[in-house]
Each structure stands twice: as structure tokens, then as C-alpha cells.
């Protein structure tokens, strides 16, 4: 059964230095508050997994929390570069970053294989592309029935997966709606999982029998953090702050302004500071 706890406890109990860790959410429901808690607690040598690193991994990389990253698209969507990610890859600042790069299709398949307890995923992918030349984790497998050669990638099995969801009930059952990305697969494929939610309610009342529900017994810890996905969004609660995504370009471009932003908005802040974003759109 999931433990309903505080964010500080959930992170300190479940995340160890050196862990392989996935913080998922495909544009929607990105677990920012939890990511900031990782930075505040000084977690280090993390190997980060995420399809779209987004601003959140720019922050983790820029503070030196990561030794490596597995990803498929590392930009600020619709805006441009992730400057801290680029600085790490191009100039090894603040430390070198080992990268394992895939396509979205491969990452999505690899998460699904992890959830299905399989060792690898296969897809009709990477045809004529150069990534297999630079990523030894992209291999080939031959179909035993047709002889077709397909791409194979290892299943994603994180030590810890962290996601943000809409709500949970008091037993720790969790509901996701809207763009649900790979969060279900990422949680089911992980050894431990932390879910932050907009609110904890008496009755979950899933809107449909086919709703995406993660039962309490498949989750390690549940934490109520209203606004915890800002500046991404929570469908039905608050909208994506595209203005913040645009503003991040200037903040992250320069090492000093980035460090100042982290000091003010992460190190001297807490999960409760996210609540103002939840209220804004209510």
C-alpha cells in the first residue's frame, strides 16, 4: 500500500545517491515540486531518464545532480535550447554528462517493456538513422517467424519513478487524465515510485471504468502538492505557463542568472510555494 507522506520524507526515503530515476510527464503533469526537492536534498550522481528532459532536467543538470541522462528530445518545446543541458554536453559544466539518446518511439516502447517485465523492447525504428552508430544500446533482433530485422532497446527499469497526478484518495489510489504520456508504464516498471497529486479526496470517483488509475498497491508513496506541476500543467486545474517556458530561455542562458534563480526559487523555497499556482486558475 502506498504511504501518504510529506514530499521531503518521500524523497529522502526512496531516492538514493546514484539511483537511476525517471521523472515523467509528457508536457502535462511534470513533477516539478518533486524535482526541486531532489535538488534541495542535494541528491547526487543520479542517472536521469525522461523522454523530453524539459526545464526540469535542465535544472537538475545545471545544479550538478546528474551523472547521466537517457532521453529522446532535449529542448525547451517551441522556445529553443535547454541551455544548462547544452552547457553540460558542450562544455562539461558543471560536470560531464553521460548521454544515452533514443527516439520517442524507442523510449515509449522501452517503458512499456519495463512495465510488462520484459528484458527489451522491439520496434520498426531507426531505419537509416545515425543514432544506432553512437548508442550501443540500440541493437537489432530478427523476427523468428518472418525474418524481419527490427530495432531492439533495453527495457526501462528505474530504481525510482516520480510522477505528478491529478488526485488520489486516502488509501493512495491515484487518478491520471488528459495527456497521460508514459507515466503508468514508468511507475509499473520501477522498483519504487512517488506520486505527487493536486489533491487528496475522500472518493476517487474515476470518471470512466477505463480511466487511468494506479492502485495504491502499485505505488510506494503519495504526496499532496497542489500546483506541483507548475510551470507545466494539470488538466482541469491550471494551464501550462507558456510565458514561464519562454522566460526560462533568458534565465538559463547564463550560469549566474541560473544559479541565482535556483537559490531563490528552489533552495529557499518549499513544496508549499507551488500552491499559489494551483489557486491562480481555480
Amino acid at each position, binding site marked *: 500500500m502506498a504511504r501518504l507522506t510529506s514530499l521531503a520524507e518521500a524523497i529522502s526515503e526512496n531516492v538514493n545517491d546514484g539511483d537511476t530515476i525517471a521523472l515523467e510527464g509528457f508536457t502535462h503533469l511534470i513533477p516539478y515540486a518533486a524535482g526541486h526537492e531532489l535538488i534541495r536534498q542535494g541528491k547526487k550522481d543520479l542517472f536521469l531518464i525522461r523522454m523530453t528532459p524539459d526545464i526540469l532536467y535542465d535544472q537538475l543538470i545545471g545544479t550538478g545532480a546528474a551523472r547521466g541522462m537517457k532521453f529522446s528530445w532535449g529542448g525547451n518545446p517551441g522556445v529553443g*535550447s535547454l541551455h544548462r543541458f547544452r552547457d553540460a554536453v558542450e562544455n562539461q559544466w558543471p560536470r560531464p554528462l553521460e548521454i544515452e539518446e533514443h527516439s520517442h518511439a524507442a523510449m515509449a516502447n522501452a517503458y512499456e517493456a519495463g512495465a510488462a517485465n520484459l528484458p527489451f523492447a522491439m520496434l520498426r525504428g*531507426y531505419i537509416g538513422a*545515425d543514432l544506432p552508430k553512437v548508442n550501443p544500446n540500440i541493437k537489432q533482433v530478427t523476427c523468428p517467424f518472418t525474418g524481419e530485422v527490427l530495432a531492439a532497446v533495453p527495457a526501462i527499469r528505474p530504481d525510482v519513478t516520480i510522477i505528478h497526478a491529478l488526485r488520489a484518495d486516502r488509501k493512495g489510489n491515484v487518478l491520471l487524465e488528459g495527456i497521460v504520456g*508514459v507515466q503508468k508504464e514508468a511507475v509499473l516498471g520501477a522498483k519504487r515510485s512517488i506520486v505527487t497529486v493536486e489533491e487528496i479526496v475522500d472518493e476517487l470517483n474515476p470518471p470512466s471504468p477505463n480511466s487511468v488509475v494506479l492502485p495504491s498497491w502499485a505505488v510506494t508513496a503519495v504526496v499532496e502538492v497542489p500546483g506541483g506541476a507548475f510551470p507545466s500543467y494539470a*488538466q482541469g486545474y491550471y494551464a501550462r505557463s507558456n510565458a514561464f517556458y519562454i522566460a526560462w530561455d533568458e534565465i538559463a542562458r547564463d550560469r549566474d542568472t541560473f544559479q541565482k534563480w535556483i537559490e531563490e526559487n528552489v533552495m529557499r523555497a518549499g513544496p508549499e510555494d507551488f500552491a499559489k499556482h494551483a489557486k491562480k486558475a481555480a
Partner: protein
Amino acid sequence: MSDFTPTEMMTIAAARALTNDDVCFVGIGAPSAACNVARLTHAPDITLIYESGTVGTKPDVLPLSIGDGELCETALFTVSVPEMFRYWLQGGRVTTGFLGGAQIDRFANLNTTVVGDYEHPKVRLPGGGGAPEIASNCGQIFITMALSKRGFVDKLNFITSMGHGEGGNHRERLGMRTKGPTRVITDLCILEPDPVTKELTVVSIHQGVTREQITENCGWPIKFADQVIDTPVPTATELQTLRDINARTKKAHQGDKEAA
């Protein structure tokens, strides 16, 4: 209508490539604008799909990301990302993929990964995202990007997504049954692959643009088809539709500035 910018011409020419029957996988940025102009003008029933899992979406403002809430709220339905890539894209249900890119070569291969050496890049670009499999699994591919020497290069440092590879029947030799890139729409002209060599060739030139301008802005000695037509200028409706959606988009994206 003669008062329009090259970028407006590019977006409208790209929109015209789409039909009402298309099921289109939409890349972010310029492709997204083109696809929605098509939907709001001549192709009202087009199915637009974004890789976030939103199918049949009808956004009122252009999304900044491929997963803005607007896309989900206006979609016919939304699926998980594994389902998106496995059942719908790899399953062969998508007729057209619409991509942009940082760099392209004469065979319409795209680079969005690195400039320079992969291990020690001069510029680290975002990477492939959905593009490598969009390029191979969609029935055909349209590409839109501004024509410039930086973007249209003689040799790519990295092939993120294969277009026609080394040209000729390279796609077939690798087992692909899809057409690959069939049209590249720029701000100066429209290119299509030569039927045999698959080298991108100018087939249509936008109003006021000279052949010299096109040659000067391309990183390889660009060829012109035997018959080159004048791209029809934007109609009043096309231009108004594009300007309206851009204005709504700008307002919406800056509207939450205080919250930031």
C-alpha cells in the same frame, strides 16, 4: 493579395499540401501552423495528430509545445504515448507526417541532433524526438523550413531522420514501403524529389523571388525542374486565417505572464 511576408507564403504553401482526407502527424513550430491553417481553410475534416497522444485535435490557438492542454481539450480522443507510437504510427494509420528541422541535405535527410562531432558537438540540438519513426512510418512526409545556407547543407554531420538516404531507391533497399519526403516547402520556393535520383529540385517559385536568390541561399548547387511554376500568391482568406491564429496564439502565450 500581394502584401505578405516570405514566412506567411511558406506557411500557406505548406498548408496547401494537405488534403481533407489526410491523417497528419504534426511536428511543432512551422508544421503546426501550416496544418491548422489547412484545417481552418480547405481541409476542415483533416485529422491532426500530435505525438503527445492527441488525435483529431482542433486547437483554437497554436500550441507552444506538442502537449499543450488545448490539444487534449479539443481532441476527439487522447491515447498514451506508447499507444500513439505503436498502434497509430507504427501501425500504418498515418498518411502524412509534417516535419521541420535544423538542417536538411539534397536527399531530404534531416539533422536535429548535433552540429559537429557527436561526442564533442559544437552545437547540441534537441535530438530526434518522434521524427526518426515519423519519417519511416507515415505514408509520405512534408517538410517545411526556411531556405538558408545554414539549414540546407551539402553534407549533414548527423542523420537524425532518413529522407531518401543516398538517393535513388535507398529507402526500398532498407525495406521501407512508405514514400518518404515528397515535398519541401521553403520561404522562397517549393522543392520536390526528382522521380529517379530523389534529389530535391525546385518546382515552384514564390512571387518576387529570383533563381539567383534560391541558388545563393542553398548549400549545394540546387537544380531546377524542367517546368518551374509560379507559386500562387496567398488568397485573402488564407492570409486572414493565418494572421488571426497567430494573433490569438501570441495573446494566449503571453497572457499568463503574471503567473510566471
